[in-house]
């Protein structure tokens, strides 16, 4: 979308490509990470009966900025025993994995990096890079705790991708498309058109689908929690067991990049859920722009709704993190292989049968 716009404007494929590549980082991921880290600390603080950061700026608003400045100043420590090449590549690779997913996420009807027909396929593929980065970091650190953390992480992410993909498949079956843009456009107008409420068609199928959509939502939410390593599945970075897992040996900006990737990932999966089940960028009840007849306001509103939905799911992730304990690594595998995968398979089957009606 944006690519087409700039291509028509400048006629240069290189310039428009570069612009599309850089734009989500500058306009969204960096500001979001700054905001999300602060939100996390504030949410944690208030859940835990304290205030969270309060010193830097009004109610600690500039805390994360101060943290970033601190991290930039820090010494970049590389131990003698580290595998230097892999050690340097790993954070970048992890970040690329979560960053590349943003290329196809439709923030609004015009704010979309590339309108791929296989967008959902693409997301599943590129987020696989995160595992490689994590394994690389664990191996290159030459630290037993890091290695254990990385191995657990790889096992965890690979296992939990299966239920995620199966639930995504059920949506793909209903829509008959793999494009996130089509997903969003199908759920236009009012909130009862969202796929969580059975989709836009108003017939028997819609009502039959509703319970199975809820099951799908729960399954995919749990498995995306595991994919982004959040409590109760934060085993790879279990602070009390593995100190902090695969990024124990990292300092300064390299650590910050891991951190950034984590928060970018959190939003990416939340955005995916919002797009698939909660109408994507569409408003739940019409647009002010339509009412006032101001067409340029609609994309702005869409952007607002999309961010709000995304941040709501990020907030739920934080809420869970500060409430629940952590599972053990074998229990984690049990949840995926014994519960989520069979449930999602049955769900897929039933959704398939219903969509034949």
């Amino acid at each position, binding site marked *: 979308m944006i690519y087409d716009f700039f291509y028509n404007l400048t006629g240069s494929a290189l310039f428009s490509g570069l612009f599309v590549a850089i734009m989500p980082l500058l306009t969204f991921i960096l500001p979001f990470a700054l905001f999300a880290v602060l939100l996390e600390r504030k949410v944690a603080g208030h*859940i835990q009966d304290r205030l969270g950061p309060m010193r830097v700026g009004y109610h600690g608003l500039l805390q994360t900025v101060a943290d970033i400045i601190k991290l930039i100043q820090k010494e970049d420590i590389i131990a003698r025993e580290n595998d230097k090449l892999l050690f340097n590549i790993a954070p970048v690779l992890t970040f690329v994995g979560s960053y590349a997913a943003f290329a196809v996420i439709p923030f609004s009807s015009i704010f979309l990096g590339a309108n791929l027909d296989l967008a959902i396929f693409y997301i599943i593929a590129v987020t696989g890079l995160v595992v490689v980065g994590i394994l690389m970091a664990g191996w290159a650190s030459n630290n037993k705790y890091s290695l254990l953390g990385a191995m657990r992480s790889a096992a965890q992410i690979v296992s939990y991708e299966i239920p995620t993909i199966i639930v995504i498949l059920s949506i793909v079956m209903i829509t008959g498309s793999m494009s996130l843009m089509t997903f969003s456009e199908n759920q236009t107008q009012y909130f009862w058109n969202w796929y969580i409420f059975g989709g836009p068609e108003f017939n028997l199928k819609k009502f039959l689908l509703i319970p199975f959509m809820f099951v799908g939502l729960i399954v995919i939410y749990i498995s995306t929690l595991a994919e982004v390593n959040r409590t109760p599945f934060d085993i790879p970075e279990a*602070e009390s067991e593995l*100190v902090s897992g695969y990024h124990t040996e990292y300092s300064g900006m390299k650590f910050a990049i891991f951190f950034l990737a984590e928060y970018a990932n959190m939003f990416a999966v939340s955005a995916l859920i919002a797009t698939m089940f909660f109408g994507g960028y569409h408003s739940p009840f019409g647009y002010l722009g339509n009412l006032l007849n101001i067409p340029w306001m609609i994309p702005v509103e869409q952007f607002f709704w999309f961010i709000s939905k995304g941040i709501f799911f990020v907030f739920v992730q934080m809420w869970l993190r*500060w*409430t629940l304990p952590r*599972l053990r690594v074998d229990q984690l595998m049990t949840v995926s292989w014994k519960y989520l995968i069979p449930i999602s398979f049955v769900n897929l089957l039933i959704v398939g049968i219903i969509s034949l009606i």
Partner: protein
Amino acid sequence: MSVRTEEMVLNMGPQHPSTHGVLRLELTLEGEIITKVVPHIGYLHRCFEKHCEVMTYPQIIPYTDRMDYLAAMCNELGFVIGVEKLLAIQVPERVEYIRVIMAELQRIASHLVAIGTYGADIGAFTPFLYCFRDREKILNLFEITCGARLLYNYIWIGGLSHDLHPDFIRLTKEFIREFKPNLRELNNLLTYNKIFIDRTANIGILPLETAINYGVTGPMLRASGLRWDLRKDDSYSIYNKFDFEIPIGEGKMGTIGDSWDRYFVRVREMEESIKIIEQAIEQIPDGDVTAGIPKRIKPVVGHIYSRVENPRGELGYFIISDGSATPFRVKVRAPSFVNLQVLDVLCRGHMVADVIAILGSVDIVLGEVDR
């Protein structure tokens, strides 16, 4: 074809966040399964017992504070009771009541730390801060009483350093009123949490026989199913005047003597401690708390073993007096030290993550292990 496998030795601590201080564990792993655990201790050794030989009896009291620094009041109580028995002096009624109130408040504070850090070990960070919020209120109570928040030097031989603050009774009642719902909240948040139960039930089972053979005491022994509490069975100070129960492990969520039982015994002990405090502040008599302090403390030649029920188990002082102002020898039976021995038995066959869960449920204080 046979694959050559090798055991991995993983060093945990002394700078590990979950070893509760400077404990070093040498774990031998086969994959993620523990085959052997060897605790290495001594990083916090401060020669307590040797110091005692050159200190006068009142001078030793601040040193006892620094052993189990989470239960300083109880440490003082054990030592002071021993010396009072050597001196054969009777302390006023009011002093006994205040000692019991302080020891029980300290028990709650200590268990709050144990439970909170246990939650944090399992990965639930919020209960940890809830516990510390409540512990803070107890520390405030201690602060208005004697000025110190952690190491009090409050219980003296024959009396106390200060009388209660005029507001103490009111504030304690207020604390109890606030604490009861907080305890219910803690139970809902952590105790009956499905994930927490999955992590702790049937993990690190300590059979009663093993517990007795290793000399395990305190909540750990009670969690294994033996109703043994020195407050009832030895009845030191004035504990026989109060009506309270001794909770034991029932294997509610798994097997008797598992980590969840050890955790839950501590939760229920806090409820019982509240009962004791409630009764004590109702009955507390008037009197002078400093009048009975002897001017000259020189016990006759002899020895005594005095023991009290610390939050972590039986704390014993073996004091040998040679008739001078300093003891000839003070030997401490530290409950954490004895309880730590059983760690190897508990951990075998479990996973690395379980070591954390088990160590947290043993609840050691390294200041006391190393002394």
